């Protein structure tokens, strides 16, 4: 009887098979893959939920001195605004004009918007309400139509039927509002306009002036050769011709 026992002659498999025919190494790979998928899904869910939980903002608090008089915030300003950019619960506006009619170059200035902080959109304050008290040397500033007129007693009168709606559309009352301009003046005036029209003062931050900003989100509009790249500017225009006078 020379017939060999097949069980003895077949080379024993290194990877034992299960009853169902799968190798145990295959099962291991599947298990590892499933675990990895679960870990990835869970971690992405955790990451998403963490990012949706926005850091609470410090309550608005005025800076000291003249900056405080302009309404510039002590806790959130040009120095640290980068930490507060891109929040889904906030809107960001720079209140300067793209081109200011006031002849600022007559006193060594620049009538054009030379740059802005990325994330801020431009809504010129002079279109929202009348501006008074520009230095005599620069002549008249913007004297055209405005949504509101500032009265001598500090109140505002709407000039158009749509004035309040436009203001509410630009500055949603349920969001935090971050305001900026060149030095803090127009931004402070905007805060005053909003508060007098019923906005919550604790949701408005005047973060100061672009001129003092040294952060990482500076978008230069003025080029080295003196030309301007205005196409970079996210600009809100108000077309007064389409509005109904009150």
């Amino acid at each position, binding site marked *: 009887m020379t017939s060999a026992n097949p069980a003895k002659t077949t080379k024993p498999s290194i990877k034992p098979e299960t009853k169902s025919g799968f190798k145990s190494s295959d099962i291991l790979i599947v298990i590892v893959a499933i675990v990895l998928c679960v870990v990835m899904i869970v971690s992405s869910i955790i990451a998403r939920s963490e990012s949706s939980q926005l850091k609470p903002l410090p309550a608005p608090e005025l800076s000291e*001195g003249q900056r405080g008089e302009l309404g510039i915030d002590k806790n959130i300003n040009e120095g640290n605004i980068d930490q507060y950019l891109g929040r889904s619960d906030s809107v960001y506006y720079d209140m300067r004009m793209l081109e200011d009619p006031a002849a600022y170059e007559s006193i060594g200035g620049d009538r054009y918007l030379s740059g802005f902080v990325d994330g801020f959109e431009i809504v010129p304050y002079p279109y929202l309400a009348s501006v008074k008290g520009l*230095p005599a040397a620069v002549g008249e500033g913007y004297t055209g139509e405005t949504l509101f007129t500032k009265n001598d007693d500090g109140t505002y009168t709407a000039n158009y039927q749509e004035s309040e709606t436009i203001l509410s559309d630009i500055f949603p009352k349920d969001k935090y509002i971050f305001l900026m301009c060149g030095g803090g003046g127009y931004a402070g005036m905007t805060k005053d306009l909003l508060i007098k029209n019923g906005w919550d003062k604790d949701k408005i931050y005047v973060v100061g002036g672009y001129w003092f900003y040294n952060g990482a989100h500076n978008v230069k509009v003025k080029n080295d050769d003196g030309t301007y790249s205005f196409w970079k500017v996210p600009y809100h225009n108000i077309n007064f011709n389409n509005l109904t006078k009150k």
Partner: protein
Amino acid sequence: MNQKRTTKKSKRLYLVIVSCAITLIIVSSVLLAIFWTNNLPVTLDPQYYGNTEVIDISKTDYETMLKDKKSFVVMVDNAGCTTTAKMRDMMKDLPEKFTYYRILWPEAKDTDLASYVKYFPSIVVVEKGKVKYYLRADSDEDAKYYNDSAALESWLKSKINF
């Protein structure tokens, strides 16, 4: 013997007290003198007295004047901004006749002024090429000088010899 020792001891104690007192007096007078000299008003270079004039200067002009150890007044300003308008007008209307310089913020922030003046506007008094006094736009103490011409005038009078 005991009495002699006691007398010696009290003499020593007396000497220690006297020398301590003398040292204290000397140190405090030196400190007072330093404080007094540091807070004296600045005498500007003669060419700045007599006329009310505002001269615009660049970063290079400012740095040259520092090198030349000049004593002068410079206003840190930013033309395209409503916030500096009041200070500019108050400076122009001062009864004291003196010439001062005006440097715009984009130029000023690249000079040593930036280590003192963090926000425009500001008035800076330079003595022999060194910044001696300046107004801070972010200080409650200085706020009155930004709003009231009489207060600004008295500040200038306390910092400059007219």
